[in-house]
């Protein structure tokens, strides 16, 4: 299977730690990722509120490039937001013939014009679980994360809405109400995954700028639930949740107190750590919420 890798804008900016740790983990387990290096923004949640056609054209251009230039069978993204946009464009192209012909004529004008809504869209977490899986992760552990209590957080658009993710219908996808892929992968590193009620709750990140106090309240609910569950650290598979829960954490703590103070990392950083990769390569010093302190105290870095 030839895989196109679509990192999305965030992973080339503030969430570069996710980009680099994803590549390290993929390489370590023999997953070959061909980066679609001329990608554009997927349009996120903003395009779909602004212009219906644009909200399909933007992600379709990325998939057109993956198919026309790289001839891939599937496209994988580590970002919940991009995942949503790509799946949503595919659903429209497959269910709405008018949308499909609009998109195809756009792609013929500006791109390769080869894309017809027919590339399989994968989330890196789902792909990693299905193609590698907890068993292989367990066997590859060089430095066990034993003693580290992790809250495994998924965010919203990884499993929702099932109208486009088809969770609960296709066996390869995660459970749509109680996702567990990341839990099992993290448990395979030796870490203790704590039971955590807010695992699939919303971090409010979509309104991080538009409605800061509401976003902070929602983020605080997630962070403090993780802390209350006894976690040392929170791991996640989404750069937008990362921005809301990590970069915004100083503001959240200011408004909601130290109950909401907990280090936040990408799940790929912890898996990389268990593989014996260095904290520097994994960019574990990047998060504002300072995971290094707890990792040091547990003797993991």
């Amino acid at each position, binding site marked *: 299977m030839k895989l196109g890798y679509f990192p999305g804008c965030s992973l080339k900016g503030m969430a570069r730690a996710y980009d680099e740790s994803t590549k390290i983990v993929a390489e370590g387990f023999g997953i070959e990722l061909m980066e679609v290096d001329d990608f554009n923004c997927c349009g996120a949640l903003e395009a779909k509120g602004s212009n219906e056609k644009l909200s399909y054209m933007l992600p379709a251009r990325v998939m057109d490039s993956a198919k026309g230039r790289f001839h891939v069978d599937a496209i994988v993204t580590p970002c919940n937001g991009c995942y949503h946009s790509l799946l949503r464009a595919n659903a429209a192209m497959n269910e709405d013939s008018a949308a499909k012909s609009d998109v195809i004529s756009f792609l013929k004008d500006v791109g390769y014009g080869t894309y017809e809504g027919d590339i399989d869209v994968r989330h890196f977490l789902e792909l990693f679980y299905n193609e590698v899986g907890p068993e292989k992760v367990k066997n590859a552990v060089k430095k066990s994360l034993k003693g580290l209590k992790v809250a495994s957080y998924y965010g919203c658009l990884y499993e929702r809405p*099932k*109208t486009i993710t088809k*969770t*609960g*219908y296709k066996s390869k996808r995660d*459970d*749509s*109400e*109680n996702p567990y892929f990341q839990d099992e992968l993290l448990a395979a590193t030796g870490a203790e995954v704590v039971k955590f*009620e807010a695992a699939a709750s919303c971090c409010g990140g979509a309104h991080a700028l538009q409605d800061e106090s509401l976003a902070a309240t929602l983020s605080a609910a997630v962070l403090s639930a993780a802390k209350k569950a006894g976690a040392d650290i929170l791991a996640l598979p989404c750069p937008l949740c990362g921005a809301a829960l990590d970069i915004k954490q100083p503001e959240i703590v200011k408004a909601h107190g130290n109950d909401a103070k907990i280090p936040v990392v990408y799940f790929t950083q912890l898996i990389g750590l268990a593989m014996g990769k260095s904290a520097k390569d994994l960019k574990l010093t990047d998060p504002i919420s300072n995971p290094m302190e707890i990792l040091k105290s547990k003797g993991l870095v």
Partner: protein
Amino acid sequence: MKTVLVIGGGVTGLKASYELAEMGYNVSLVEKEDYLGGQVAKHKYYKLAPDMRLAGEVIDPVIKSVENNSNIKVYKHSTITSLSGDAPEFKVKIKNSKGESEETFGAIVVATGFEHFDPTVKQEYGYSRFKDVVTNAEIEEMLNPNGPTKGELKRPSDGKIPKKVAIFQCVGSRDKQVGNPYCCRVGCVVSTKQAIEIKEKYPDTEVYVYYMDMRMFGRGWEELYGKAMEEYEVIFTRGRGAEVTLKNQQLSLRAEETIMDRPIQHSVDMIILAAGQAPGEGTIEAAKILGLKQNDYGYLAPKDDFLSPNESSRKGIFIAGADKGPLDIENCIVEGAAVAAKVASSLK
């Protein structure tokens, strides 16, 4: 050719077989299970709405009338595997543990019925995750004195009698996402009946029903609904169940109380999912082997819903009961009799 094949030994098939036999036809009744009575027997239905009559009082005489009839040959644990020929000379292969044999029939009645919807796919209700989330069919078995709990309503997790029970309506019915946008036609009355049964046996247990519309169109159903509210204090809330979670080791539900315009959340000891009807495996299989037209949801499509309701898309093959769409027991029996009359007139 005066021999008729009836596929399916549920109420519809039994009634059709009996009526045909009484009219002098030879009937071969093929049933895939090793018992007769269909879903009624499979899930040990206890009482029937609206009269609270024991299901056995209805199903047992129907079964006996078939088993005691010399014109009916019953093949249990058997399935049909192929069809060749056309009306009025169908050649059908019947398979069972004794092997496969071919028989010739003048007409075929398909009465393969429904199966209860499997709510596992509604992951927000946690059916496979939480032991105390059960289906309405499982409640029938529990309330039946011959069932696994000998008639006691017991929480699967600890065997205790629940103090607070919630019933979620329309699970797998009126639901586009699972591909069943139709109404199951029986969920409302069955839940109302079960709520009354629970209250009668355990007056201290509270029962809350979450519904979108209570569709009480059958004989005596509306009266039963009134009785549940007036005499048994069953609380009906207009709002579809949204999710089931575990809060402090206790089942907790969320829904919108649409009349109050706000979401509500409360803890319960047990949740009953009023799982609707889906076309049975036997129905899908029969359609394939016999080459019958199905509707969008997999049920068998009549030649003309108004004018030829019991004729299939294929001449000489007749359909009846819950394989055409969701139906209650009372009307399945009517269907059984109706299809028998149609078969008889076609073979004349």
